């Protein structure tokens, strides 16, 4: 299962990005293949609708879970209809590597 994590940087030691739609990078982690894919967010500088277009971007990658610091109001209903699970991490000092370690316990 693929999980997307919003990241502030492009390596595994960077921390979770508190924003979802305008985060710097998306880290897509595949729990079965243990593979990590890091890609810059195409909607980082978007004026409006960064959240929904980020959702479409991740949905096209086949992501089933998203880990982020916060989600905007427009996102919830969209993710519900796509059956994508949201996970909100209130502590933003966790690194991407730590989140991946947590996911591996499943």
């Amino acid at each position, binding site marked *: 299962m693929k999980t997307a994590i919003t990241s502030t940087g492009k390596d595994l030691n960077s921390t979770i990005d508190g924003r979802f739609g305008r985060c710097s990078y998306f880290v897509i982690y595949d729990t079965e293949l243990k593979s990590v894919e890091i890609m810059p967010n195409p909607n980082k500088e978007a004026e409006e609708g960064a959240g929904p277009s980020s959702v479409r971007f991740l949905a096209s990658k086949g992501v089933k*879970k998203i*880990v982020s610091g916060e989600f905007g*109001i427009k996102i*919830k*209903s969209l*993710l*519900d209809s*796509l*059956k*994508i*699970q*949201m*996970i*909100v*991490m*209130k*502590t933003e000092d966790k690194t991407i590597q730590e*989140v991946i370690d*947590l*996911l591996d*316990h*499943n």
Partner: protein
Amino acid sequence: MCPRPKRLRKISDPPLIAGFKPYGASDRALTREKVFLHFEEYEALRLCDHKGFSQVEAALAMEVSRPTLTRIYARALQKIADAFVNGKQIIIEGGKIFFDSEWYTCEGCGCFFNHPDKASSVEECPLCGHSGVSNYTEVPEEIQEKSCRRRRLRRGQMNP
């Protein structure tokens, strides 16, 4: 000067239906008229009358002030009465709201998560796999405790 912006009202679940239609009217043209019941009004009615919350509790659950909740609730009753008396359709839509359905919190890693697949039950945290998962409650606990007594008293009056 601009008016103060409306606070977003929290709705825990979308209603199961989109509205109601009257039937058996003598004048067909009448039933084509519509009343638009806002989501927030539906939610106020659900909390106050279906779940038996006091207006204070309902206001907390919807994250608005108590006077605002009372105004929303009064408007809900007014619209429903209008629909009943005049044989209008009720359509549930609109309002300044956000949905807050089924949020859970994990005791292991302290994260919050939702559960889009409503058919299955939540057993473990999707992040750390910890089994200590609890429902994120609608009303803060300390307030629930305080008003419990009042609610019990009211129930007692209804079923002596």
